[in-house]
């Protein structure tokens, strides 16, 4: 029996921009994109990880009140949200490829602790660690 975490969501500032980033630059694909009025349930998934969906959500009313939504947008933009990790086979190759596509790296690949890691941000400010699989 195989079970586990199905969806984890991120707050992003703009869902169209997020799709462009996660799909066009990182190579994810859209899993679900459903609109209901102003609300849009949007999840993407890694092509090699079909059991997991990454939600790209905007902080918005009525899910959170307007003041909270504003606070969340500020927190995301300040890079204060929890860390995210993307695992790749070859960090330097992935870094070169992603950088060529315009991904904003905040740390170039560094070898340490027996692996290689780099850091990048999504357009909203969410911080990702790009780590080479050991």
């Amino acid at each position, binding site marked *: 029996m195989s079970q586990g975490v199905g969806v984890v969501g991120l707050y992003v500032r703009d869902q169209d921009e997020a799709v462009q980033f996660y799909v066009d630059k990182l190579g994810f694909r859209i899993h679900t994109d459903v609109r209901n009025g102003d609300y849009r349930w949007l999840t993407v998934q890694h092509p090699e990880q079909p059991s997991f969906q990454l939600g790209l959500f905007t902080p918005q009313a009525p899910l959170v009140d307007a003041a909270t939504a*504003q606070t969340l947008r500020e927190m995301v933009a300040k890079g204060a949200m929890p860390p995210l990790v993307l695992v790749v086979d070859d960090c330097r190759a992935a870094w070169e490829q992603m950088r060529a596509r315009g991904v904003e790296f905040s740390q170039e690949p560094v070898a340490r602790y027996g692996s290689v890691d780099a850091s990048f941000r999504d357009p909203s400010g969410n911080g990702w660690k790009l780590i080479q699989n050991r």
Partner: protein
Amino acid sequence: MSQDPELLRRLLRAKDCMDAASHEEWPVQRLARVSHVSAAHFARSFKQAFGLPPHRYLLTRRIERAKTLLRDTDLPITDIVFQTGWSSMGTFGRVFRDITGESPGELRKREQAASHALDRVPACFLNAAHRPDLTIAVSEKRRQQTDSRIASDEAKHTEEEP
């Protein structure tokens, strides 16, 4: 007081630059250019966003990096001073002591002793986790053995005594 998320995202870029290259010089003008705002606006908004002025943030990163190099490497302190962006040993030493409360040499000595212990954390942790039971068991066993030895000695003595 709330801030424009779009501005904050640009301030974060400047903060990322300091994080990535804390050994470099980051005058407010340079950071402000990264964030596409005026120098005065940058300094004010950065402090509001991240709780401390940009130069002090840079200082915390440099001290943090110096502490890491003191702990994890055997590089001469003069090398660490220049690698972490200081132009003089004297300034570094004074600021370091002001912030950490000890000299770089003292911190290195203490941290390297501690990090040596840190290397053994799993073993220490295991030992510590097992010690109470083991200690009780061993001491109990030893006490019982001692008791029985004394008892048997006494018995022997009793037997030999007649």
